[in-house]
Protein backbone atom coordinates (compact mmCIF):
# COMPACT_ATOMS: atom_id res chain seq x y z
CA UNK A 1 0.00 0.00 0.00
CA UNK A 2 2.66 2.37 1.01
CA UNK A 3 4.45 1.61 -2.17
CA UNK A 4 1.54 2.84 -4.26
CA UNK A 5 1.47 6.14 -2.49
CA UNK A 6 5.17 6.41 -2.86
CA UNK A 7 4.87 5.79 -6.53
CA UNK A 8 2.02 8.22 -6.89
CA UNK A 9 3.97 10.88 -5.08
CA UNK A 10 6.92 10.20 -7.28
CA UNK A 11 4.79 10.53 -10.39
CA UNK A 12 3.27 13.75 -9.14
CA UNK A 13 6.65 15.10 -8.28
CA UNK A 14 8.01 14.25 -11.66
CA UNK A 15 4.92 15.71 -13.26
CA UNK A 16 5.25 18.98 -11.46
CA UNK A 17 8.91 19.03 -12.12
CA UNK A 18 8.19 18.52 -15.82
CA UNK A 19 5.55 21.22 -15.99
CA UNK A 20 8.02 23.66 -14.58
CA UNK A 21 10.53 23.01 -17.29
CA UNK A 22 8.50 21.86 -20.25
CA UNK A 23 6.13 24.48 -21.42
CA UNK A 24 4.56 24.66 -24.84
CA UNK A 25 3.56 28.24 -25.48
CA UNK A 26 -0.13 28.91 -25.90
CA UNK A 27 -1.08 30.72 -29.11
CA UNK A 28 -4.51 32.27 -28.86
CA UNK A 29 -6.51 32.23 -32.09
CA UNK A 30 -5.99 35.49 -33.95
CA UNK A 31 -8.90 37.93 -33.89
CA UNK A 32 -8.00 39.65 -37.15
CA UNK A 33 -8.26 36.96 -39.78
CA UNK A 34 -9.88 36.80 -43.16
CA UNK A 35 -11.86 33.60 -43.02
CA UNK A 36 -13.73 33.44 -46.30
CA UNK A 37 -13.34 35.19 -49.64
CA UNK A 38 -15.72 34.42 -52.46
CA UNK A 39 -16.58 36.00 -55.78
CA UNK A 40 -20.34 36.22 -56.20
CA UNK A 41 -20.92 37.90 -59.57
CA UNK A 42 -21.08 34.59 -61.41
CA UNK A 43 -23.84 32.15 -62.38
CA UNK A 44 -24.45 29.44 -59.80
CA UNK A 45 -21.77 28.60 -57.24
CA UNK A 46 -19.51 31.46 -56.20
CA UNK A 47 -15.78 31.19 -56.77
CA UNK A 48 -14.04 30.64 -53.44
CA UNK A 49 -10.57 32.05 -52.88
CA UNK A 50 -7.81 30.06 -51.21
CA UNK A 51 -6.73 31.89 -48.07
CA UNK A 52 -3.23 31.32 -46.78
CA UNK A 53 -2.94 32.70 -43.25
CA UNK A 54 0.77 32.00 -43.04
CA UNK A 55 1.76 34.20 -45.96
CA UNK A 56 -1.27 36.51 -45.66
CA UNK A 57 -2.60 35.96 -49.11
CA UNK A 58 -5.80 35.14 -50.91
CA UNK A 59 -5.71 33.50 -54.30
CA UNK A 60 -8.65 33.43 -56.68
CA UNK A 61 -8.64 31.03 -59.60
CA UNK A 62 -10.70 32.51 -62.41
CA UNK A 63 -11.98 30.36 -65.23
CA UNK A 64 -11.13 31.98 -68.54
CA UNK A 65 -14.48 31.32 -70.19
CA UNK A 66 -16.31 33.71 -67.86
CA UNK A 67 -14.21 36.56 -69.20
CA UNK A 68 -14.96 38.61 -66.14
CA UNK A 69 -13.83 42.19 -66.15
CA UNK A 70 -15.02 42.96 -62.63
CA UNK A 71 -15.13 40.97 -59.39
CA UNK A 72 -17.62 41.30 -56.56
CA UNK A 73 -16.16 39.70 -53.40
CA UNK A 74 -18.09 38.69 -50.29
CA UNK A 75 -15.87 38.40 -47.24
CA UNK A 76 -16.05 36.85 -43.79
CA UNK A 77 -13.68 37.84 -41.02
CA UNK A 78 -13.02 36.93 -37.40
CA UNK A 79 -15.69 37.70 -34.88
CA UNK A 80 -15.70 41.41 -34.11
CA UNK A 81 -13.18 42.36 -36.76
CA UNK A 82 -13.59 44.89 -39.56
CA UNK A 83 -12.12 44.79 -43.03
CA UNK A 84 -11.18 47.39 -45.56
CA UNK A 85 -12.04 47.51 -48.36
CA UNK A 86 -15.40 46.28 -47.14
CA UNK A 87 -17.13 43.16 -48.37
CA UNK A 88 -18.93 43.91 -51.62
CA UNK A 89 -16.42 46.50 -52.79
CA UNK A 90 -15.95 45.81 -56.48
CA UNK A 91 -12.61 45.05 -58.02
CA UNK A 92 -12.89 46.91 -61.29
CA UNK A 93 -11.06 46.87 -64.58
CA UNK A 94 -9.51 43.45 -64.43
CA UNK A 95 -8.03 43.86 -67.89
CA UNK A 96 -5.96 46.74 -66.59
CA UNK A 97 -5.00 44.62 -63.58
CA UNK A 98 -3.77 41.83 -65.82
CA UNK A 99 -1.89 44.08 -68.19
CA UNK A 100 -0.43 46.72 -65.95
CA UNK A 101 -0.51 45.12 -62.53
CA UNK A 102 -1.93 46.56 -59.32
CA UNK A 103 -1.62 45.65 -55.66
CA UNK A 104 -4.94 44.71 -54.13
CA UNK A 105 -4.75 44.49 -50.38
CA UNK A 106 -7.23 43.92 -47.58
CA UNK A 107 -6.66 44.99 -43.99
CA UNK A 108 -8.43 43.12 -41.23
CA UNK A 109 -8.53 44.91 -37.89
CA UNK A 110 -9.25 42.69 -34.93
CA UNK A 111 -11.07 43.56 -31.72
CA UNK A 112 -7.73 44.11 -30.05
CA UNK A 113 -6.78 46.66 -32.68
CA UNK A 114 -4.13 44.67 -34.53
CA UNK A 115 -4.24 44.82 -38.31
CA UNK A 116 -3.42 41.89 -40.55
CA UNK A 117 -2.98 42.63 -44.24
CA UNK A 118 -3.81 40.19 -47.03
CA UNK A 119 -2.70 40.50 -50.62
CA UNK A 120 -5.02 39.31 -53.39
CA UNK A 121 -3.62 37.18 -56.18
CA UNK A 122 -5.63 36.31 -59.24
CA UNK A 123 -4.72 33.29 -61.32
CA UNK A 124 -6.59 32.89 -64.56
CA UNK A 125 -6.96 29.37 -65.85
CA UNK A 126 -6.44 30.38 -69.43
CA UNK A 127 -5.16 28.33 -72.34
CA UNK A 128 -1.82 29.33 -73.79
CA UNK A 129 -1.81 32.33 -76.05
CA UNK A 130 0.46 31.94 -79.06
CA UNK A 131 0.98 33.89 -82.27
CA UNK A 132 2.35 32.81 -85.60
CA UNK A 133 4.95 34.97 -87.24
CA UNK A 134 3.87 37.18 -90.11
CA UNK A 135 7.47 37.76 -91.19
CA UNK A 136 9.17 34.39 -91.42
CA UNK A 137 12.60 35.70 -92.45
CA UNK A 138 13.67 38.58 -90.20
CA UNK A 139 16.05 39.78 -92.91
CA UNK A 140 13.04 40.29 -95.20
CA UNK A 141 10.21 41.77 -93.19
CA UNK A 142 6.76 41.66 -94.74
CA UNK A 143 6.12 45.21 -95.87
CA UNK A 144 2.88 47.15 -96.16
CA UNK A 145 2.53 50.46 -97.93
CA UNK A 146 -0.29 52.91 -97.59
CA UNK A 147 -0.59 56.05 -99.67
CA UNK A 148 -1.62 58.95 -97.49
CA UNK A 149 -2.42 61.17 -100.44
CA UNK A 150 -4.54 58.76 -102.46
CA UNK A 151 -8.31 59.10 -102.60
CA UNK A 152 -8.57 55.80 -100.77
CA UNK A 153 -5.98 53.26 -99.72
CA UNK A 154 -5.79 50.42 -97.29
CA UNK A 155 -3.87 47.32 -96.38
CA UNK A 156 -4.75 44.38 -94.29
CA UNK A 157 -3.05 41.54 -92.52
CA UNK A 158 -4.03 38.56 -90.49
CA UNK A 159 -2.72 37.37 -87.18
CA UNK A 160 -2.97 33.64 -86.66
CA UNK A 161 -2.33 31.83 -83.46
CA UNK A 162 -4.12 30.05 -80.67
CA UNK A 163 -5.98 30.91 -77.53
CA UNK A 164 -7.60 34.15 -78.65
CA UNK A 165 -10.55 35.15 -76.49
CA UNK A 166 -13.92 34.77 -78.14
CA UNK A 167 -15.04 38.20 -77.02
CA UNK A 168 -13.15 40.92 -78.80
CA UNK A 169 -13.59 43.24 -75.84
CA UNK A 170 -11.03 41.05 -74.10
CA UNK A 171 -8.49 41.55 -76.83
CA UNK A 172 -6.15 44.42 -77.55
CA UNK A 173 -3.66 44.30 -80.40
CA UNK A 174 -0.87 46.83 -80.73
CA UNK A 175 2.21 47.45 -82.83
CA UNK A 176 5.50 47.58 -80.96
CA UNK A 177 8.46 49.44 -82.41
CA UNK A 178 12.13 48.78 -81.85
CA UNK A 179 12.16 50.98 -78.76
CA UNK A 180 9.34 48.88 -77.32
CA UNK A 181 6.89 51.71 -77.76
CA UNK A 182 3.32 50.57 -78.38
CA UNK A 183 1.08 52.02 -81.07
CA UNK A 184 -2.60 51.37 -81.29
CA UNK A 185 -4.75 49.54 -80.46
CA UNK A 186 -5.52 48.27 -83.94
CA UNK A 187 -9.13 47.97 -84.97
CA UNK A 188 -9.95 44.31 -85.24
CA UNK A 189 -11.90 43.90 -88.43
CA UNK A 190 -13.26 40.46 -87.89
CA UNK A 191 -15.45 39.19 -85.12
CA UNK A 192 -14.31 35.70 -84.39
CA UNK A 193 -16.71 34.37 -81.84
CA UNK A 194 -16.34 31.01 -83.50
CA UNK A 195 -12.83 31.11 -84.87
CA UNK A 196 -10.41 31.55 -82.02
CA UNK A 197 -7.26 31.32 -84.09
CA UNK A 198 -7.46 34.26 -86.45
CA UNK A 199 -7.76 37.99 -86.22
CA UNK A 200 -7.83 40.29 -89.19
CA UNK A 201 -6.86 43.91 -89.31
CA UNK A 202 -7.29 46.51 -91.94
CA UNK A 203 -5.80 49.93 -91.87
CA UNK A 204 -7.61 52.41 -94.03
CA UNK A 205 -6.82 55.85 -95.30
CA UNK A 206 -9.98 57.60 -96.42
CA UNK A 207 -10.97 61.15 -95.54
CA UNK A 208 -12.31 61.27 -92.00
CA UNK A 209 -12.71 57.54 -91.74
CA UNK A 210 -9.00 56.78 -91.60
CA UNK A 211 -7.77 54.35 -89.00
CA UNK A 212 -6.76 56.21 -85.86
CA UNK A 213 -3.33 54.56 -85.71
CA UNK A 214 -2.19 56.25 -88.93
CA UNK A 215 -1.95 59.61 -87.21
CA UNK A 216 0.54 58.19 -84.72
CA UNK A 217 2.86 56.18 -86.96
CA UNK A 218 6.07 57.59 -88.45
CA UNK A 219 6.70 57.50 -92.20
CA UNK A 220 8.41 54.15 -91.89
CA UNK A 221 8.87 51.70 -89.11
CA UNK A 222 9.46 48.12 -88.08
CA UNK A 223 6.87 46.72 -85.72
CA UNK A 224 6.26 43.53 -83.84
CA UNK A 225 2.64 42.66 -83.32
CA UNK A 226 1.52 42.18 -79.74
CA UNK A 227 -1.78 40.71 -78.64
CA UNK A 228 -3.26 41.02 -75.18
CA UNK A 229 -5.98 38.44 -74.73
CA UNK A 230 -7.68 38.58 -71.35
CA UNK A 231 -4.91 37.80 -68.86
CA UNK A 232 -2.19 36.82 -71.31
CA UNK A 233 0.05 38.55 -73.82
CA UNK A 234 2.04 37.33 -76.80
CA UNK A 235 4.29 39.17 -79.22
CA UNK A 236 5.74 38.16 -82.57
CA UNK A 237 9.51 37.78 -82.61
CA UNK A 238 9.87 39.25 -86.06
CA UNK A 239 8.71 42.61 -87.28
CA UNK A 240 6.63 43.84 -90.17
CA UNK A 241 7.42 47.07 -91.94
CA UNK A 242 4.79 49.75 -92.51
CA UNK A 243 5.47 52.63 -94.86
CA UNK A 244 3.21 55.66 -94.96
CA UNK A 245 3.81 57.02 -98.46
CA UNK A 246 3.46 60.70 -99.23
CA UNK A 247 2.92 61.43 -95.57
Amino acid at each position, binding site marked *: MKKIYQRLAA*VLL*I*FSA*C*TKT*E*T*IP*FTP*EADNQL*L*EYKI*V*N*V*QGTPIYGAINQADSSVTIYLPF*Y*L*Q*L*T*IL*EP*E*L*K*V*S*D*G*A*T*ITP*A*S*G*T*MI*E*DLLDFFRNGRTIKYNVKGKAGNVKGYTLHIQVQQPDLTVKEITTDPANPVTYNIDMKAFFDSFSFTLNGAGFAS*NLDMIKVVLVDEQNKEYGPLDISQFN*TTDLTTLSFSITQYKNMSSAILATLPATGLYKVRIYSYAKVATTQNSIRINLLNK
Partner: protein
Amino acid sequence: MISHLSWRTVTAMLFIACSIVACSKNDNKNEIIDPGETSTTVKTGIYKVVNLVADTNATSAGNAVELYYNLEENKVVPASLKQTNKWDIVFYGIYNSSVYPNNGAAVGSPGYGGPGTARIYVVTDRQFDAQYYDVTNFKPISLPIPRELWNTAFNAVKTVPVTDEKMVVRDAGLDHFQNNFDGWGYYDFYGSLFPGDPKKTHVVYALPRVIIVKTVKGHYAKVIIENIYKDNPENPNRDNKPGYVTFRYAIQMDGSKNLDIQ
Protein backbone atom coordinates in the same frame (compact mmCIF):
# COMPACT_ATOMS: atom_id res chain seq x y z
CA MET B 1 10.86 4.36 -15.60
CA ILE B 2 8.68 6.68 -17.57
CA SER B 3 10.75 8.49 -20.13
CA HIS B 4 11.39 12.21 -20.21
CA LEU B 5 9.92 12.42 -23.66
CA SER B 6 6.66 10.87 -22.64
CA TRP B 7 6.22 13.35 -19.84
CA ARG B 8 6.71 16.21 -22.23
CA THR B 9 4.12 14.74 -24.47
CA VAL B 10 1.67 14.26 -21.65
CA THR B 11 2.15 17.80 -20.44
CA ALA B 12 1.78 19.23 -23.86
CA MET B 13 -1.40 17.29 -24.37
CA LEU B 14 -2.75 18.51 -21.07
CA PHE B 15 -2.12 22.12 -21.96
CA ILE B 16 -3.58 21.71 -25.41
CA ALA B 17 -6.60 20.05 -23.87
CA CYS B 18 -7.02 23.02 -21.61
CA SER B 19 -6.83 25.52 -24.39
CA ILE B 20 -9.29 23.62 -26.55
CA VAL B 21 -11.73 23.62 -23.74
CA ALA B 22 -11.20 27.31 -23.29
CA CYS B 23 -11.82 27.98 -26.99
CA SER B 24 -14.97 25.98 -27.25
CA LYS B 25 -16.55 28.25 -24.75
CA ASN B 26 -16.58 30.96 -27.43
CA ASP B 27 -19.24 30.42 -30.05
CA ASN B 28 -16.71 30.94 -32.80
CA LYS B 29 -19.19 33.09 -34.73
CA ASN B 30 -17.73 34.58 -37.86
CA GLU B 31 -19.09 37.97 -38.55
CA ILE B 32 -20.12 38.89 -42.07
CA ILE B 33 -19.22 42.46 -42.66
CA ASP B 34 -22.14 44.21 -44.28
CA PRO B 35 -21.05 46.90 -46.74
CA GLY B 36 -24.14 48.80 -45.77
CA GLU B 37 -27.24 49.29 -47.87
CA THR B 38 -26.86 52.69 -49.44
CA SER B 39 -29.20 51.99 -52.36
CA THR B 40 -32.94 52.48 -52.18
CA THR B 41 -35.41 50.38 -54.08
CA VAL B 42 -38.56 51.90 -55.49
CA LYS B 43 -42.07 51.04 -54.46
CA THR B 44 -44.56 49.35 -56.74
CA GLY B 45 -45.60 52.02 -59.21
CA ILE B 46 -45.09 53.70 -62.54
CA TYR B 47 -41.89 55.54 -63.36
CA LYS B 48 -41.07 57.69 -66.35
CA VAL B 49 -37.55 58.31 -67.57
CA VAL B 50 -37.15 61.23 -69.94
CA ASN B 51 -34.22 62.07 -72.20
CA LEU B 52 -31.94 59.61 -70.51
CA VAL B 53 -28.63 60.31 -72.12
CA ALA B 54 -27.33 57.13 -73.63
CA ASP B 55 -24.83 58.27 -76.21
CA THR B 56 -25.17 61.70 -77.67
CA ASN B 57 -22.56 60.87 -80.28
CA ALA B 58 -24.79 58.12 -81.58
CA THR B 59 -25.02 57.79 -85.28
CA SER B 60 -25.92 54.74 -87.27
CA ALA B 61 -22.23 54.35 -88.00
CA GLY B 62 -21.31 52.64 -84.83
CA ASN B 63 -22.36 51.03 -81.61
CA ALA B 64 -23.59 53.64 -79.19
CA VAL B 65 -22.27 53.81 -75.65
CA GLU B 66 -24.17 51.29 -73.56
CA LEU B 67 -26.74 52.43 -71.04
CA TYR B 68 -27.30 50.05 -68.09
CA TYR B 69 -30.47 50.56 -66.08
CA ASN B 70 -31.57 49.31 -62.70
CA LEU B 71 -35.36 49.25 -62.71
CA GLU B 72 -35.66 48.44 -59.00
CA GLU B 73 -33.66 51.51 -58.05
CA ASN B 74 -34.69 53.61 -61.02
CA LYS B 75 -31.18 54.63 -61.94
CA VAL B 76 -28.38 54.28 -64.43
CA VAL B 77 -25.51 52.00 -63.52
CA PRO B 78 -21.97 52.44 -64.90
CA ALA B 79 -20.87 50.09 -67.68
CA SER B 80 -18.03 48.76 -65.53
CA LEU B 81 -20.69 46.85 -63.56
CA LYS B 82 -22.02 44.96 -66.57
CA GLN B 83 -21.03 41.61 -65.09
CA THR B 84 -22.85 42.14 -61.80
CA ASN B 85 -26.39 42.01 -60.51
CA LYS B 86 -26.68 45.78 -60.32
CA TRP B 87 -28.73 46.32 -63.49
CA ASP B 88 -31.79 44.83 -65.19
CA ILE B 89 -31.82 46.03 -68.82
CA VAL B 90 -29.32 47.70 -71.08
CA PHE B 91 -29.81 49.87 -74.15
CA TYR B 92 -27.06 48.67 -76.43
CA GLY B 93 -25.83 48.58 -80.02
CA ILE B 94 -26.71 50.81 -82.94
CA TYR B 95 -28.84 53.73 -81.69
CA ASN B 96 -29.03 51.93 -78.32
CA SER B 97 -31.72 49.91 -80.02
CA SER B 98 -30.90 46.47 -78.59
CA VAL B 99 -32.56 46.06 -75.22
CA TYR B 100 -30.89 43.10 -73.49
CA PRO B 101 -31.89 41.65 -70.16
CA ASN B 102 -29.10 41.12 -67.65
CA ASN B 103 -28.51 37.46 -68.17
CA GLY B 104 -25.05 36.01 -67.61
CA ALA B 105 -25.79 32.86 -69.56
CA ALA B 106 -26.88 34.64 -72.74
CA VAL B 107 -24.50 34.74 -75.68
CA GLY B 108 -24.08 38.23 -77.02
CA SER B 109 -25.53 39.82 -73.92
CA PRO B 110 -23.39 42.50 -72.32
CA GLY B 111 -24.05 40.70 -69.02
CA TYR B 112 -22.50 37.46 -70.25
CA GLY B 113 -20.27 35.80 -67.67
CA GLY B 114 -21.95 37.61 -64.80
CA PRO B 115 -24.58 36.47 -62.29
CA GLY B 116 -27.69 37.98 -63.95
CA THR B 117 -30.79 35.89 -64.54
CA ALA B 118 -33.15 38.52 -65.94
CA ARG B 119 -35.44 37.80 -68.90
CA ILE B 120 -37.70 39.79 -71.24
CA TYR B 121 -40.71 39.28 -73.45
CA VAL B 122 -42.12 41.54 -76.17
CA VAL B 123 -45.92 41.54 -75.99
CA THR B 124 -47.59 41.50 -79.38
CA ASP B 125 -51.27 41.96 -79.97
CA ARG B 126 -51.84 41.85 -83.69
CA GLN B 127 -55.38 43.16 -83.37
CA PHE B 128 -54.12 46.16 -81.49
CA ASP B 129 -51.19 46.54 -83.88
CA ALA B 130 -53.54 46.74 -86.87
CA GLN B 131 -54.53 50.24 -85.80
CA TYR B 132 -51.14 51.62 -86.71
CA TYR B 133 -49.20 48.83 -88.38
CA ASP B 134 -49.30 46.61 -91.46
CA VAL B 135 -49.24 43.18 -89.84
CA THR B 136 -48.37 41.38 -93.07
CA ASN B 137 -45.43 43.48 -94.14
CA PHE B 138 -44.39 44.65 -90.71
CA LYS B 139 -44.22 48.38 -91.03
CA PRO B 140 -46.20 51.32 -89.68
CA ILE B 141 -49.14 52.32 -91.86
CA SER B 142 -48.65 55.98 -91.27
CA LEU B 143 -46.61 58.19 -89.05
CA PRO B 144 -46.72 59.69 -86.52
CA ILE B 145 -48.37 56.94 -84.56
CA PRO B 146 -50.91 58.55 -82.20
CA ARG B 147 -49.40 59.00 -78.76
CA GLU B 148 -52.55 57.75 -77.09
CA LEU B 149 -51.71 54.25 -78.35
CA TRP B 150 -48.73 54.10 -75.99
CA ASN B 151 -51.04 54.64 -73.03
CA THR B 152 -53.53 52.11 -74.31
CA ALA B 153 -50.88 49.47 -74.93
CA PHE B 154 -49.22 50.05 -71.56
CA ASN B 155 -52.46 49.92 -69.61
CA ALA B 156 -53.72 46.89 -71.49
CA VAL B 157 -50.97 44.72 -70.00
CA LYS B 158 -52.40 43.85 -66.59
CA THR B 159 -50.45 40.71 -65.89
CA VAL B 160 -47.36 38.87 -67.09
CA PRO B 161 -48.82 36.95 -70.06
CA VAL B 162 -46.29 34.10 -70.21
CA THR B 163 -44.37 31.74 -67.99
CA ASP B 164 -40.71 32.48 -67.28
CA GLU B 165 -39.64 29.75 -69.71
CA LYS B 166 -41.28 31.64 -72.56
CA MET B 167 -39.43 34.82 -71.72
CA VAL B 168 -36.22 35.18 -73.64
CA VAL B 169 -32.65 36.17 -72.93
CA ARG B 170 -31.92 37.66 -76.33
CA ASP B 171 -32.43 41.34 -77.05
CA ALA B 172 -35.60 43.17 -78.00
CA GLY B 173 -34.58 45.25 -80.97
CA LEU B 174 -35.60 46.83 -84.22
CA ASP B 175 -38.81 45.30 -85.50
CA HIS B 176 -38.19 42.67 -88.19
CA PHE B 177 -34.88 44.26 -89.07
CA GLN B 178 -32.73 41.50 -90.53
CA ASN B 179 -34.76 39.00 -88.50
CA ASN B 180 -38.33 37.91 -88.01
CA PHE B 181 -38.80 39.08 -84.44
CA ASP B 182 -41.24 41.68 -83.19
CA GLY B 183 -39.32 44.61 -81.88
CA TRP B 184 -39.97 47.77 -79.97
CA GLY B 185 -39.00 50.19 -82.73
CA TYR B 186 -39.20 50.38 -86.50
CA TYR B 187 -36.04 51.27 -88.40
CA ASP B 188 -36.96 52.94 -91.66
CA PHE B 189 -33.79 52.09 -93.46
CA TYR B 190 -34.68 53.47 -96.87
CA GLY B 191 -37.05 56.16 -95.69
CA SER B 192 -39.73 54.27 -97.59
CA LEU B 193 -42.45 55.70 -95.38
CA PHE B 194 -41.60 59.16 -96.67
CA PRO B 195 -40.38 58.66 -100.21
CA GLY B 196 -38.32 61.46 -101.65
CA ASP B 197 -37.42 62.91 -98.26
CA PRO B 198 -33.76 62.22 -97.54
CA LYS B 199 -34.21 63.44 -93.98
CA LYS B 200 -36.43 60.50 -93.30
CA THR B 201 -33.94 57.72 -94.04
CA HIS B 202 -32.39 55.76 -91.19
CA VAL B 203 -34.91 56.95 -88.65
CA VAL B 204 -36.05 54.76 -85.76
CA TYR B 205 -39.72 55.13 -84.84
CA ALA B 206 -40.76 53.73 -81.48
CA LEU B 207 -43.79 51.45 -81.61
CA PRO B 208 -46.40 51.11 -78.85
CA ARG B 209 -45.06 47.73 -77.77
CA VAL B 210 -44.76 46.59 -74.18
CA ILE B 211 -41.69 44.68 -73.01
CA ILE B 212 -42.12 42.51 -69.92
CA VAL B 213 -39.00 42.31 -67.78
CA LYS B 214 -38.18 39.90 -65.01
CA THR B 215 -35.57 41.78 -63.01
CA VAL B 216 -32.41 40.21 -61.64
CA LYS B 217 -34.06 40.13 -58.23
CA GLY B 218 -37.09 38.33 -59.66
CA HIS B 219 -39.68 41.10 -59.77
CA TYR B 220 -41.81 41.74 -62.83
CA ALA B 221 -42.06 45.02 -64.70
CA LYS B 222 -43.56 46.29 -67.94
CA VAL B 223 -41.53 48.73 -70.00
CA ILE B 224 -42.60 50.81 -73.00
CA ILE B 225 -40.12 52.83 -75.03
CA GLU B 226 -41.41 56.14 -76.29
CA ASN B 227 -38.48 57.58 -78.18
CA ILE B 228 -34.73 57.49 -78.71
CA TYR B 229 -34.49 61.06 -79.90
CA LYS B 230 -33.89 64.09 -77.77
CA ASP B 231 -37.01 65.74 -76.40
CA ASN B 232 -39.25 62.96 -77.63
CA PRO B 233 -40.30 64.39 -81.03
CA GLU B 234 -43.51 62.97 -82.33
CA ASN B 235 -42.25 62.61 -85.90
CA PRO B 236 -38.46 62.42 -85.82
CA ASN B 237 -36.10 62.87 -88.74
CA ARG B 238 -32.35 62.84 -89.17
CA ASP B 239 -32.00 66.29 -87.70
CA ASN B 240 -33.15 64.97 -84.35
CA LYS B 241 -30.47 63.71 -82.03
CA PRO B 242 -30.58 60.00 -81.15
CA GLY B 243 -29.12 58.66 -77.95
CA TYR B 244 -31.74 60.14 -75.58
CA VAL B 245 -34.04 57.38 -74.41
CA THR B 246 -37.51 58.19 -73.10
CA PHE B 247 -39.35 55.28 -71.59
CA ARG B 248 -41.94 54.41 -69.03
CA TYR B 249 -42.15 51.39 -66.75
CA ALA B 250 -44.33 49.93 -64.04
CA ILE B 251 -42.82 47.54 -61.53
CA GLN B 252 -44.50 45.14 -59.14
CA MET B 253 -42.48 44.73 -55.95
CA ASP B 254 -44.74 42.27 -54.15
CA GLY B 255 -43.34 39.32 -56.09
CA SER B 256 -46.53 38.66 -58.05
CA LYS B 257 -47.22 38.91 -61.77
CA ASN B 258 -49.81 41.63 -61.30
CA LEU B 259 -48.98 44.51 -63.62
CA ASP B 260 -52.27 46.36 -63.24
CA ILE B 261 -50.50 49.25 -61.60
CA GLN B 262 -51.88 52.77 -61.41
